[in-house]
């Protein structure tokens, strides 16, 4: 019984940590978006405001994945 409780707690934390692996993809995605955005701005500085807006939008969507991961992790830790 005692063992099971600790085992479950440990597994919960491990699972939360593994859930956050999803942030890897989001990080890569955000990095790619930023890279593309900066390159585009370097090529065409006049269009910088539009590129910036769209870049931030794209980064926000890419980040959404990490946010789902975070939500799952939080739920695992606190809500189970």
């Amino acid at each position, binding site marked *: 019984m005692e063992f099971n409780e600790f085992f479950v707690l440990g597994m919960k934390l491990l699972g939360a940590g593994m859930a956050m692996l999803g942030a890897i993809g989001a990080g890569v995605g955000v990095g790619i978006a930023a890279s593309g955005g900066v390159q585009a701005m370097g090529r065409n500085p006049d269009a910088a405001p539009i590129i910036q807006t769209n870049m931030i939008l794209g980064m926000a969507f890419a980040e959404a994945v990490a946010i789902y991961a975070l939500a799952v992790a*939080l*739920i695992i830790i*606190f*809500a189970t």
Partner: protein
Amino acid sequence: MEALGINLGFFLFQVFNFSILAILLYAFAYKPLVNMLEQRKTKIAQGLEDAQVAAEARANAEREAEKVLADAQTKASNVVRDATERAEAAGREVRAEMEAEAAKAKDVALAEAAVERDRMLADVRGQIAALAMAATQKLVGEALDEKRQHALLDEFFSGVKAGKVVVLEGTALAGSSAEITSALPLTEAEQNTVKKDVLSKIGDQATVAFRVDPSILGGLVIRVGDKVLDNSVAGQMEGLRQKLV
């Protein structure tokens, strides 16, 4: 859900809070500020437009000012020229007037001098006659009839003999004016005689002027039109001299 802190009451509180805030900010901030932004945008646009219009207007005004200036300069030079001309004209007029006046004064003075001279010559005529008669008496030795001597002298000076002008005898004259020159001023009666005689020759409408020229010494010179009848002593002496020489 409870562990994540999600609670319907808190959630509704936040929604309510947000709604109140949105309404307040809309009324207080967004509406007036957005209106102000739009107003400012239009004002800036209008300001730019106005500035352009003003620049154009200024260019026009400058051009016009230049034109006005040029006009003014032309006008000013015209005025100056006019004034100069008028002043010159006025000066000329004044000078002419003065010259005319001077000439008139001179004429008057000359006329007066001539009259004076004529009067003096008339005065001396009697004395000359007396002297001549005395000299003749001395030379001739006998006294001519004094009356006859006077007649001879008169005839010498006036060229009038027995009421007729000697020089006009047997000549035909035509003209509208006659000028009669004598060595000494003729008397009233002689003048009348000569005038009548001349007029009978050339017509009643003609004018007769009398001149006194001592250089002809005696007799009359009558000029009618372009014809000169010289019956003067000087003329006769000249003729004599030419014959002799």
